[in-house]
């Protein structure tokens, strides 16, 4: 069974006015249980609109969305249950914090699910631990924390609902390099521990390469491709044509090829580039 599946998903803004625009255009994609999917695309390519359909925050103009095999807009499906099943963390998620203490804020989701006190407590502590938040932070006000900590509290607030699918919109945007690595590292560990399906929207190709197994590429509202990381970055030229960045090391390999040194079209990690370059250098000696 696919964790997430869309069939001919289309979403139009301002239908019936001169401003009508198709933000998401006929997308059919199936994401398997337990996968770590990177979602990339140029600004305005429809990534954020797409992911808001996966937990029913937006209702499609036409097409269907399935979460764990259930059509989320079926009459006998409660859309709130879908939101607990597919947790969505927005960009700059620290803006959603509102409670007096970190603990209470993380507990907001589980409480809305109707969990008992003990269950909520277990979920909150577990989520806080997974996001690398110390126990003594739980009683502090979320507004006193640093930016990176706030972001992790917001993430914990969604993870505490123990969603089977976790959708993250640029979880590391605007953080300093250390905070960035920490947040992404915690997410990756969480993925490994829990086997949760993860969709990670990011502008950083380096992050996608490092963490994702598969990549979903959006272009102008349409699905450009949904493939393994290897395959996607072997099409570097095509990615650049649709205005996407490629990892720096891939650019480096492309430059080398222009100068007549071909180290292969599948370079997207520094390790592999190093290996190939060393091989070539050895061959010369």
């Amino acid at each position, binding site marked *: 069974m696919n964790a997430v599946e869309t069939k001919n998903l289309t979403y139009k803004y301002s239908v019936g006015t001169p401003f009508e625009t198709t933000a998401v255009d006929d997308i059919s994609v199936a994401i398997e249980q337990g996968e770590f999917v990177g979602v990339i695309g140029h600004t305005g390519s429809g990534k954020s609109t797409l992911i808001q359909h996966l937990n029913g925050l937006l209702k499609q103009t036409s097409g269907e969305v399935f979460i764990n095999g259930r059509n989320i807009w079926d009459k006998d499906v409660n859309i709130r249950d879908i939101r*607990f099943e597919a947790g969505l963390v927005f960009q700059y998620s620290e803006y959603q914090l509102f409670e007096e203490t970190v603990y209470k804020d993380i507990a907001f*989701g589980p409480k*809305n699910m109707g969990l008992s006190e003990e269950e909520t407590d277990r979920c909150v502590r577990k989520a806080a631990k997974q996001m690398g938040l110390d126990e003594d932070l739980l009683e502090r006000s979320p507004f006193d924390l640093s930016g990176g900590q706030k972001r992790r509290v917001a993430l914990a*607030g*969604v993870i505490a609902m123990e969603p089977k699918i976790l959708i993250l919109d640029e979880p590391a945007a605007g953080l300093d390099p250390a905070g960035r690595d920490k947040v992404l590292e915690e997410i990756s560990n969480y993925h490994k521990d829990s086997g949760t399906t993860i969709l990670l929207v990011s502008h950083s190709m380096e992050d996608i390469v490092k963490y994702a197994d598969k990549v979903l590429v959006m272009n102008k509202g349409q699905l450009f491709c949904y493939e393994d990381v290897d395959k996607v970055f072997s099409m570097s030229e095509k990615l650049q044509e649709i205005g996407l960045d490629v990892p720096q090391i891939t650019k480096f390999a492309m430059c080398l090829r222009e100068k007549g040194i071909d180290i292969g079209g599948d370079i997207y990690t520094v390790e592999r580039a190093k290996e190939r370059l060393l091989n070539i250098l050895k061959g010369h000696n």
Partner: protein
Amino acid sequence: MLKDITIGQYFPGDSIIHRMDSRFKIVLDILYVVMLFIADNFISLAIAGLFIIMAYGVSGIKPIMMVKSLKPLLPLILFTAVLNLFFVKGTDEPLVQWWIITIYWEGISTAIYMIVRIICLIIGMSLLTYTTSPIVLTDAIERLLSPLKKIKLPVHELAMMMTIALRFIPTLIEETDKIMAAQKARGAELDTGGLMKRAKALVPVLIPLFVSAFKRANELAMAMECRCYRGGDGRTKLRQLKAAPFDYMIFFLMLTVLGFIIVDNMVF
């Protein structure tokens, strides 16, 4: 959703009305309101109505926008009309007399006049905001109120506050939408339940909204201070408001029409 609010909306354009001096536009609008309430017969109201429709024609604002600006105030218009219809007493025989309802010919005519007046008033005011950007509008208000500086009214500060408030309305609306979506994703129920439940459900939306509004205010104040903003003293304008011959022309036309209506009222 919240994005559909149209109050104070501005449609950029390059019509004569758009290019008019915004001070004149405000004064003309005030004179127009005076005119509407002085006019109390068919001819003068027809002139007032024609005037605003012509202005819309020249401005290039779509006629549908007139209807849109009226929509939120429709209940008020109907209420006024109904009140006038039933409670205005005439001197002649009543037209209808049934149970407690008596309708006089004067009631009907007053109700119609009232409807026309309010409609003209609203679309007249809307034309001002449709064709004048908020920044220019507050600038004009500042200039018009500047004589009040003599009595120590902080005119510049008030205008600056208004500019800032107007500037941040769309930002705050966008932010509210975002926070609402984020809390909904955590299972908050914002649009179901009774009044108390809904009011309580707004806490997770309002607190983050206030926090970020205060933060934004702080940052803005800091940014303004960094650029040495110290209020209105000795401050010059980048865009000087300049009255063109056309502005005076329209102004005198308006005065003439107003004079005509006053004379018209006295004669008939």
